[in-house]
């Protein structure tokens, strides 16, 4: 999975490209942790180029979400396709994560 991060004011916008699975979960976790360590309490993950997510990817989302919640930050996902949406729904992750249609709406909500 490719990860491209940019900062818009105080919000990390992170574009993910590829499957969020057992092969990509650990490197993704390392990269997202690195970004948060660099500073910033707000993060949006853009899923528009992610075909699917497995439980290994959910583990990373949960970790980031819990960290940002503890630190008083904000976390959102945008652009999830049907397959990713279905996985989030069947695992109840749609209730504990904030989902937005696209980057624009996510940035508005986190601003």
């Amino acid at each position, binding site marked *: 999975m490719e990860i491209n991060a940019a900062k818009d004011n105080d919000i990390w916008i992170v574009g993910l490209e590829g*499957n969020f*699975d*057992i*092969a990509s979960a650990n490197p993704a976790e390392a990269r997202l942790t690195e970004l948060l360590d660099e500073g910033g309490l707000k993060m949006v993950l853009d899923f528009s180029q992610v*075909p*699917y*997510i*497995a*439980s*290994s990817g*959910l*583990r990373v989302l*949960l970790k980031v*979400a*819990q960290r940002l*919640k*503890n630190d008083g930050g904000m976390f959102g996902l945008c652009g999830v396709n049907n*397959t990713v949406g279905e*996985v989030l729904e*069947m*695992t*109840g992750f749609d*209730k*504990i994560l904030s989902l937005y249609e696209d980057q624009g709406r996510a940035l508005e909500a986190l601003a």
Partner: protein
Amino acid sequence: MDSMVTFDIVISNDLAEIQKVKESFNQFAASHDVLRTLGPKIAIVFDEILSNIISYAYRDEKRHEIEIGVALLVDRLLLKITDDGIPFNPLDRKPPDTGLPIDKRTIGGLGIHILRSFMDEVSYQRRGENNILDLVKILEPTTEIS
């Protein structure tokens, strides 16, 4: 009359090998229209089952083989995963509480929950030294094997 197309692949207990299974399935799916939309879901199912086996089934550092069998019938897709790890029935796992608030959520059991949700039937048996997991996905009744 049922016609059936199959393919098998054997991998070793190395997480990097999971990708081979997904690629083989993608190739298989590409030549059978009925499977095209199922691709991502089956990839997730392989990811969950195989990563579980490779991470937890072996008590030694030796190389082990995992066999994956795929069969496409007119109305269903069958998957069979066989490993020679320690006896382990993944279906015994307690389902996760998906209603907990974020700070109480853990990741345990989610993979099995996802694959059970995606597949129509999942069954486990221990036969000799092997764990055998059989999975069935019912296909739309109007679709045909191309």
